[in-house]
């Protein structure tokens, strides 16, 4: 809804669009609690929001500087075409495109990744400022400031909500995919929140990506690969947490709980991702995730293939995180000593040492080699590095298991 309204008012009036949505929801709460929920709630909401938009344009046409030079908006200036144009803005097909346009605007290279996520959650996923603050374990104030900065950016740059031109498309789509993946990761493994998995964020990320897969301009192999990757990861959601909300490690997960339907969907996307000649990071990561999904049990995991994928990934997009994951595969294939050697070879040691998974893996390796004091030391460091209560509990239980 915000996406449509932003197109009507122009991106420089994003706050106005958000106000309309807020007012609409308030009105819904009042009217619905009075008269009951209407037959078609979403149509009701759209109608109210549309009428409010009509009011605002009519009242403020001259007072507020709407940029009517946009060819799509200029027809709002004439009473001959106003009503029909307003209707046109609210039709289903354009609405889907509007979300896409909004996504591109939110992922403008001039906006930092953090701020991109905030504005996406706010305008496209309908999160409240408080919810976003909770998700990032920060104050509402901070989030408000971030949103404010992004809106200012929209205003200053007079951003037009548009699907980028062909030469820009690739780069801009990459930015959108990156934001979606960040959103998904945040939901999959909340770095901050007390809940380790945020299903709502997983779902929103997948929904947004699905939109991209349905639009001709953004149907690139990377999009399908990311979609496949998210399907494979998400298929395990139910088995990743115990009833008490404790994380269950991959080797201990009940594979019967894995969502086979979602794995199959992921496979479909994977096949579509295979068209063309591009192999992206998402392709390789999806392939790794698929190997895990395909293994009947942990011991049957094809670590050889997974290690090969990690080798490829380290070449394509070297990152300390990938190196650490690669070391896990080495540990499975060649044992703890080989994995330790691999870890020592990583150049960015300093950056790594502040990374809790790295220390936790070091702890694990030393535990396997029965270097108890070292194992305890690294598990201890890792514990101080994660803010997630659940992960701290796991590390704690690993330390006590050493005694």
């Amino acid at each position, binding site marked *: 809804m915000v996406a449509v309204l932003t197109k009507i008012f122009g991106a420089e009036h994003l706050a106005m669009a958000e106000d309309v949505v807020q007012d609409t929801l308030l009105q819904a709460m009042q009217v619905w609690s009075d008269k009951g929920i209407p037959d078609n709630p979403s149509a009701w909401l759209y109608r109210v929001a549309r009428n409010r938009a009509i009011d605002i344009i009519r009242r403020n046409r001259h007072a507020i500087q709407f940029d009517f030079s946009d060819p799509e908006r200029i027809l709002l200036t004439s009473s001959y075409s106003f009503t029909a*144009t307003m*209707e046109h803005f609210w039709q289903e097909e354009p609405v889907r495109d509007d979300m896409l346009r909004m996504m591109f605007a939110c992922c403008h290279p001039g906006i930092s990744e953090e701020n991109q996520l905030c504005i996406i959650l706010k305008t496209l996923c309908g999160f409240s400022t408080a919810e976003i603050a909770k998700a990032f374990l920060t104050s509402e104030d901070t989030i408000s400031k971030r949103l404010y900065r992004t809106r200012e950016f929209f205003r200053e740059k007079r951003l037009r909500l548009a699907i980028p031109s062909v030469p820009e498309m690739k780069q801009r789509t990459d930015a959108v995919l990156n934001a979606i993946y960040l959103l998904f990761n945040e939901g999959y493994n909340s770095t901050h929140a007390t809940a380790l998995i945020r299903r709502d964020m997983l779902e929103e990320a997948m929904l947004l990506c699905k939109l991209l897969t349905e639009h001709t301009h953004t149907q690139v192999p990377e999009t399908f690969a990311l979609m496949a990757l998210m399907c494979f990861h998400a298929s395990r959601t139910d088995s990743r947490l115990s009833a008490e909300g404790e994380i269950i490690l991959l080797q201990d997960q009940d594979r019967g709980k894995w969502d086979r339907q979602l794995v199959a969907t992921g496979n479909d996307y994977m096949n579509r991702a295979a068209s063309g000649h591009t192999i992206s990071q998402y392709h390789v990561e999806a392939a790794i995730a698929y190997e895990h999904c395909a293994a009947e049990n942990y011991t049957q995991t094809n670590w050889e293939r997974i290690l090969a994928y990690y080798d490829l990934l380290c070449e394509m997009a070297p990152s300390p995180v990938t190196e650490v994951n690669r070391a896990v595969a080495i540990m499975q294939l060649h044992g703890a000593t080989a994995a330790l050697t691999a870890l020592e070879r990583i150049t960015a040691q300093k950056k790594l040492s502040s990374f809790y998974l790295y220390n936790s893996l070091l702890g694990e390796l030393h535990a396997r080699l029965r270097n108890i004091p070292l194992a305890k030391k690294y598990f201890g460091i890792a514990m101080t590095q994660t803010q997630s209560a659940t992960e701290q509990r796991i590390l704690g239980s690993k330390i006590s298991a050493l005694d």
Partner: protein
Amino acid sequence: MKDYLLLFRGGPQYIPSAEQPQAPISPDWRNWMETLVKNGRFVAGQRLVGDTGAVLKGRKTQLTDGPYAEGKEVVAGYLIIKANDLEEAAALLKGCPIFEHDDASTEIREIAF
């Protein structure tokens, strides 16, 4: 490219009410105008409210109720478009939905400047 004023006379009157502040109009108008916009020909234009008005006349600026005797003579609205010449302006006007009404007519005038 020059600006032309299209002065619409006749056709259904624009009479807004409390329930319908934007008195209904056929979506054909939007479709036709969208073509003008796409070709860079649209400048501006509005409907005029049909059932009220006044006329101030002569040196004495005498005020009379307006507008006029017959509905088909009442100006119902205007549009300003861009065209190379009068002929092209007329050609652009051809698809206009106003002509679905038998009593409608449109005057085309070049705008000075």
